[in-house]
């Protein structure tokens, strides 16, 4: 975990004081609504449907147990005792009182947290791979690089009023778990034949109302130049991105309009002046960042313990289900990463109560070196669990309602807060997720379907990433009525693709039935062991369309 030194702490404390002053001026009428808006947004504060919403930053999804406990306490004291983890690895509070927000930020600062740049037209929280540092397919731990980017982007004086929001994601593994192709900038750390670290820089991806897959701006940037190159990328966007129409203001529109060659030319021209200047990374700087992410002191796990774990998996069907779906291989033999499911019918996807937060923090202390990760799929991960403790952890998670063995299945739905909370939404999304989880709760059926990403957004801003769900559901508003558009074939990982719309939208109550028909086509058409996505890619949209709209 990155730990603040005096400089980080001073900056966060001064930010709290600054916001308190801004809030006082707003309440005294010295700051108008319009003027206050970007200031509050850049501190994570939205004015929402029922109450303000506060989005708290969880840098690249890394949380310490004591921080999660502090968050639990904050939700009890200032909110309604629960929080919502988002697809960008942050935590949202749905019911804070406006006047309490400076105090909440002060509480966060005490545990080295903040809400800086979790909204607004600036560089947002950098996101990454939830299995960073432990993944078997990892080339380079992305976390130190994310931390360097976090510092570079925090209160950057030049980039606080960009044309639109700007999101960066970093992957350091062979398999992309950070959806880097649908970010404003996606970075992939890799090594060339000489073993030297290089950065692949993608730009212009994004979801929202004009979804696009990112273009490659630079294949092989030497790591020393990461920050100066990012500065050039964002400066070109700041100067040339459209400001006349907020729906055309994201960098994807600029890259598309200029063409990636021209965008690259301008970036390179800019970078020629910045290269080797201030903020050029050195080995010492990177080592200093890496110092914050040491390997935990893992005790050795005996081979016999590994055998016992495998034996239990053979004997106990429920345990086997949990392990198959919610447990991920680790680079160190004898260790596993365990995903805590935040998907269960009683709660909105990604929601956690204060009591659960406390309990997870304690589990992290006992089973996972006091660290928790937040996933892009709105679950939590304990990243370093010895195999001989997984059964005990599983039982504790069962008791907490967080052992739902459905990670990666149709039931593991990504979902935005939707019309129940969000003032932008056209339609509700949580009740759709709950109706689907109810319809498809039979585990054998879910396992038979294999990996399916089902993503729901309540409006075209696409916070629920519906474009990249294998099945995507989008709430739309037609003359005040809620309808749902269904698309299939999206994908957020290595071979990223955007879903195609099946056809006319559906009534809310018809959504589970339509999804069922889509699944029936898949089950009937699939080749042995073929994933839903691959079947779709082979047979196309037509058979699905015919079945769904048949009379």
């Amino acid at each position: 975990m990155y730990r603040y030194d005096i400089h980080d702490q001073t900056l966060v404390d001064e930010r709290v004081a600054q916001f308190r002053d801004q809030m006082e001026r707003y309440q005294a009428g010295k700051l108008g609504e319009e003027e206050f808006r970007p200031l509050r947004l850049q501190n994570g504060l939205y004015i929402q449907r029922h109450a303000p919403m506060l989005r708290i930053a969880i840098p690249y999804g890394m949380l310490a147990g004591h921080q999660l406990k502090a968050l639990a306490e904050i939700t009890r004291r200032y909110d309604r005792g629960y929080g919502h983890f988002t697809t960008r690895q942050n935590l949202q509070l749905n019911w804070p009182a406006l006047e309490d927000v400076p105090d909440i930020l002060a509480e966060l600062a005490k545990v080295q947290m903040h809400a800086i740049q979790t909204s607004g037209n600036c560089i947002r929280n950098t996101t990454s791979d939830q299995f960073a540092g432990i993944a078997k397919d990892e080339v380079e731990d992305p976390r130190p690089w994310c931390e360097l980017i976090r510092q570079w982007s925090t209160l950057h004086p030049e980039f606080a009023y960009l044309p639109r929001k700007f999101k960066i994601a970093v992957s350091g593994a062979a398999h992309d778990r950070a959806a880097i192709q649908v970010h404003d900038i996606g970075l992939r750390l890799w090594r060339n034949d000489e073993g030297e670290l290089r950065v692949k820089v993608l730009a212009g991806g994004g979801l929202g109302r004009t979804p696009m897959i990112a273009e490659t701006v630079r294949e092989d940037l030497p790591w020393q130049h990461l920050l100066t190159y990012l500065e050039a990328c964002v400066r070109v966007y700041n100067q040339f991105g459209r400001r006349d129409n907020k729906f055309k203001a994201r960098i994807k529109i600029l890259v598309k309009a200029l063409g990636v060659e021209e965008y690259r030319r301008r970036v390179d021209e800019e970078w020629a002046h910045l290269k080797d200047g201030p903020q050029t990374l050195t080995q010492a700087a990177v080592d200093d960042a890496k110092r914050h992410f040491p390997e935990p002191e893992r005790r050795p796990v005996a081979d016999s313990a590994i055998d016992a774990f495998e034996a239990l998996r053979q004997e106990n069907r429920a345990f086997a289900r949990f392990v198959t779906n919610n447990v991920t291989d680790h680079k160190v033999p004898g260790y596993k990463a365990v995903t805590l499911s935040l998907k269960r019918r009683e709660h909105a996807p990604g929601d956690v109560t204060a009591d659960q937060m406390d309990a997870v923090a304690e589990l992290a202390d006992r089973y996972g070196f006091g660290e928790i990760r937040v996933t892009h799929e709105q679950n939590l991960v304990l990243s370093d669990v010895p195999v001989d403790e997984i059964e005990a952890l599983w039982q504790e998670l069962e008791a907490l309602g967080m052992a739902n063995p459905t990670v990666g299945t149709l039931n593991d739905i990504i979902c935005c807060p939707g019309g129940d909370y969000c003032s932008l939404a056209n339609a509700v999304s949580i009740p759709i997720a709950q109706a689907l989880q109810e319809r498809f709760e039979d585990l054998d059926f879910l396992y038979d379907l294999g990996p399916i990403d089902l993503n729901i957004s309540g409006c075209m801003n696409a916070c629920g990433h519906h474009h990249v769900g294998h099945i995507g559901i989008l709430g739309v508003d037609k003359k005040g009525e809620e309808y749902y558009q269904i698309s299939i074939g999206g994908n957020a990982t290595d071979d990223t693709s955007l879903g195609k719309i099946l056809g006319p939208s559906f009534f809310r109550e018809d959504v589970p039935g339509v999804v069922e028909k889509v699944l029936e086509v898949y089950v009937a058409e699939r080749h042995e062991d073929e994933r839903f996505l691959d079947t779709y890619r082979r047979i196309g949209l037509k058979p699905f369309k015919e079945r769904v709209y048949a009379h």
Partner: protein
Amino acid sequence: MPTEAQEQAPAPVHVDHLIVDGELAVENAWCVSFDENALPEQLPAFVPLALWRKHADDEELAPLLTSDTELTAALGEELARAKAIAIDFPAFTDGRGYSLARLLRERYGYQGELRAVGDVLVDQLDYMRRCGFDAMALRDDQDPADALRALSAFSVSYQSDVHQRSALFERRLAETH
């Protein structure tokens, strides 16, 4: 009746509160005129580039850059002779002026006064300062006391900027060695 030219171009703007080098200036002699065709009656003035070029020897004129100015190398060099440069913020949410200021200071080594004009609000000032503005003409409704306080909100920053030529990570390394 106003003439056609007056209708097209807004009247010159003059604001009361000007911050120079972190302090409230005693007075602000300069106005800002967007009229590309005629010099304002009130001088000295920041005027559009074309007009400034036309009156190259006039000591009472300085160039006004709009936020969409494309700062080419030729323009960057040409501006070196300006005694002051104003950069307009047509809306406080338009962040292009920050990049223009940094480029003028860091790339073209501009040494004269760099003044932020237009929709200049209290809570932008510190970013402006870090990007190289040494003068900020506050929008008329802004409280100068709030402005001065806002300028000293932060004692630490992560990035390099016009004044602080190294990033915090570089300074940290220097501290420990």
